[in-house]
């Protein structure tokens, strides 16, 4: 059973892709919990929604390629512009004029686009463990060769298109363990694994390839246009996107940085109380 069910939900269709969204609560301002990589769907916000919905209007949706939304097969359907356009369509359908954005990991790409290109719709933006390719990736990820055929890949070598098509569950097991580096995270690992297994390796390949356009230059260009308040939170033990990425994003957006010492890549799942309080504090200030 869920702690809280949506007050309303719906589906918007864009370019033939169905996007399923949910809306909770009444308060001001609206908080828009954005999707992240298609590996998981909007239930990854389950520790935020009930609390935030008591204070704010909360909007979330399953990103294309996940959950109840459509799963286009073509990589071009997964670029950051498509996610950003989905987000605007969801806001329109739910009747939300402007909102505080909250994103995790590569959700930072669509958040940056919305902030830069639709500033009138954005009151502020919270980036949790953002993907911000302004600094080199983590050393352990240098082994990654996405397009190559690798015999018996190990570790980050399993971050590989060919491997996902044949050994998707093994990759999920590896990757989710990298998300949760904190001890005693079994429940969070089980949750993320089960959500990830709702899709298949082919879909994740397409979703990955769609984001290859999001490089350092594009990130920097969008970040430079940000005018809204920004809060970045990033764990020092993040083994997926290094802490330095969050630092760099806070630096180039002029945002506040909350360092989560000891936290991994999904602090909103592993340290929900602290993250909830930080989001509320930020949203309370954005209201004015």
């Amino acid at each position, binding site marked *: 059973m869920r702690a809280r069910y949506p007050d309303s939900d719906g589906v918007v269709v864009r370019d033939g892709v169905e996007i399923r969204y949910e809306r909770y609560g009444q308060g001001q301002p609206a908080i828009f919990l954005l999707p992240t990589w298609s590996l998981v769907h909007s239930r990854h916000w389950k520790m935020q929604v009930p609390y935030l919905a008591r204070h704010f209007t909360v909007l979330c949706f399953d990103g294309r390629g996940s959950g109840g939304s459509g799963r286009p097969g073509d990589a071009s359907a997964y670029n950051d512009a498509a996610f950003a356009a989905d987000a605007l369509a969801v806001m329109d359908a739910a009747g939300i004029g402007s909102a505080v954005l909250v994103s995790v990991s590569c959700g930072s790409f669509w958040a940056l686009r919305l902030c830069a290109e639709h500033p009138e719709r954005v009151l502020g933006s919270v980036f949790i463990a953002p993907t911000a390719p302004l600094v080199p990736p983590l050393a352990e990820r240098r082994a990654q060769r996405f397009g190559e055929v690798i015999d018996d890949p190990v570790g980050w070598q399993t971050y590989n298109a060919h491997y996902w098509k044949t050994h998707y569950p093994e990759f999920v097991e590896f990757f989710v363990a990298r998300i949760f580096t904190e001890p005693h995270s079994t429940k969070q690992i089980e949750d993320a694994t089960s959500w990830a297994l709702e899709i298949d390796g082919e879909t994740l390949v397409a979703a990955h390839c769609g984001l290859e356009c999001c490089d350092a230059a594009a990130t920097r260009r969008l970040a430079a246009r940000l005018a809204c*308040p920004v809060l970045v939170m990033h764990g020092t033990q993040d083994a997926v996107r290094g802490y330095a990425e969050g630092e760099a994003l806070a630096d180039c957006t002029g945002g*506040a*940085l909350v*360092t*989560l*010492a000891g936290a991994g890549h999904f602090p909103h799942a592993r340290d929900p109380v602290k993250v909830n309080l930080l989001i509320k504090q930020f949203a309370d*200030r954005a209201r*004015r």
Partner: protein
Amino acid sequence: MRARTPDREGVVQRGGVRVAYEVFGHGQPALLLIPASPITHARSWKGIVPSLARRFTVVTTDGRGTGRSDRPRAPECYAPAEVTADLLAVLDAAGIDVAVLVAHCHAVPWALCLAADHPERVAGLLAIDPAVGVAPPAPHTVESERRWAERVDAPSGWAMRNRHFWRQDGGYREWIEFFFGQQLPEPHSTKQYEDAVGWALDTDAEAMIAEREGRAAPAGSEAEALCRRVRCPVRVLHGSDDRCQPVARGRRVAELTGGDLVVLEGAGHLPHGRDPVKVTRLITGFVDGITGASMHTTTWTRGPCRPRRALYLSSPIGLGHARRDVAVAKELKRLRPELDIDWLAQHPVTAVLDAEGEHVHPASQWLASESAHVASEAAGHDLHCFQALRRMDEILVANFMVFQEVVEEGLYDLVIGDEAWDVDYYWHENPELKRGQNVWLTDFVGYLPMPDGGDREAFLTTDYNAEMIEHIDRYPWIRDRAIFVGNDEDIVPDTFGGNLPAIRDWTTRHFAYSGYITGFTPPGPDELPPLRSQLGYHDDELVCVVAVGGSGVGRALLEKVVAAYPLAKKAVPELRMIVVTGPRIDPAVFPERAGLELRGYVHRLYQHLCVCDLAIVQGGLTTTMELTAAKRPFLYFPLGHHFEQNFHVRHRLDRYGAGHCMDYATTDPDLIAARITEMAGKPVSYRDVETDGAARAAQLISELI
């Protein structure tokens, strides 16, 4: 002594009337604190200014009619337009373009006028117990309001609010004493009451009458319209037990201005005096909301990942705490090597901590000086330490606010407060602010009145004791462990006063006993002779060490002892007297005599005390117990009116059979010389002082983590 003195002060002059102001701090934004003058003035903000000034620029003013401002006699001088013009002039003089206004009672209408008429100067308005006529006045005030100008025979209560009565001999004072009794319905408000009455008596009946008759505050629809014209953010604080202004007025002001209302349940009309911690936090939160103070860059460490940390507070009053606390900390680290200890401490404690390589928290620099305050309270051989502690109220709250910020940011597991009066008092008054486990250490329990203080002082000490007992009774979870530095028999046989319990029984129920903590091990019989010769003392002389601690308080005693020296020297030719004057007393003020040595500072004084043949000291616990532990003969002179030295320390020394208590006032040089002759070099038979006190205290503390 004030907790913080202004960085700038000045006077504005309008139409020949001078109005004084003070400016504290440099931060943004600026706050203008507007008192309900002339019945009160800028000092009424003393509990909140020091902590606000650490973040913001704070401007206070004595309104016309009181304080350091002029006291015009014509009612028209107190028209709202005049007062608001004063306030704008103060802002101009202080170089402040825009300010957040904080106004109390009948100053709120002035603040509303400023906000409505000069919106470009006002970023927000925080109104405390607003006297704004948007709801009916308190029923008990209506009759006196109506008969203000009538002649009333022998009025009492609210009817004393009468222009003729105020002009009668003593009438104004009688009214003020009644009025502030009504405004502080909270129990244990004696200090706030004394302050408020004192400020009201800074002005006089004529200025008060002129202000009252010139006030012309808007009422009814006019007042409503004024509130509606305010566009800036508004917050109203209102005491539920305010007998001056009904809460309905505060509620209505909040509604009409679109502001928020915080009802302070159980509070009277002076919450900024009686609940300064809560009021400061409400002001700070309001200002942060207005400025939208962006969230700042910070680190939060996951709970399981945090090192174990303790914050140790060591009282700077008296010299004894620092060394015993260092000893406890060392034992604690022996038991719990993983524990990090930060110290929030001030001079002279920091000197000891620095020498020991302990880590002093940088926020310590913000602490207002308690030892300077105590020194300022002393005169001759006299220190009324109970009243000195009462008058230290604004320093305690200022330092508590520093502590609270440190403890909220520092993620401490444990707070150890050795007579950290501020933490103990304000955590009991604001229990929701407690963080971590809390250890309270003290070496005395119970305020005792000095006999010459009469009924009033006995009433006050009983009231303070009652408040402490009620604190512990109501919130037993604030002190997780209370440690008495000593043994049950060290506790005086008195009661807390009135119907309150016996001190020893109550203490035994609420404290654990650690035994005394000297902070050092006295030299054994074999170590004494070499130490004595190492310090330059010879076997054929009788060494008398005279020491008075580090403050300037001891000069009177030194003078008496130096005067006794020739007589004593005549009777005891082998006498050698070492007089330690300390850093604040110039040795040159004393006459030179053969065999009399004056020293400004003596390194490791306790070693000299350990080997001397006689010591002459004040009645402080640390020094006398060092002499007791070292089994030296000594004369001690408790400071006049110092209840701790006169009762608590004396009782403890009597239990150890140690020392000879002398009354400074009735002792002349002849008597001192006679005692020196009698006691120097004579063996003593004191009870042993335990040497495991620090370890026992550390054990009691370590059980909490």
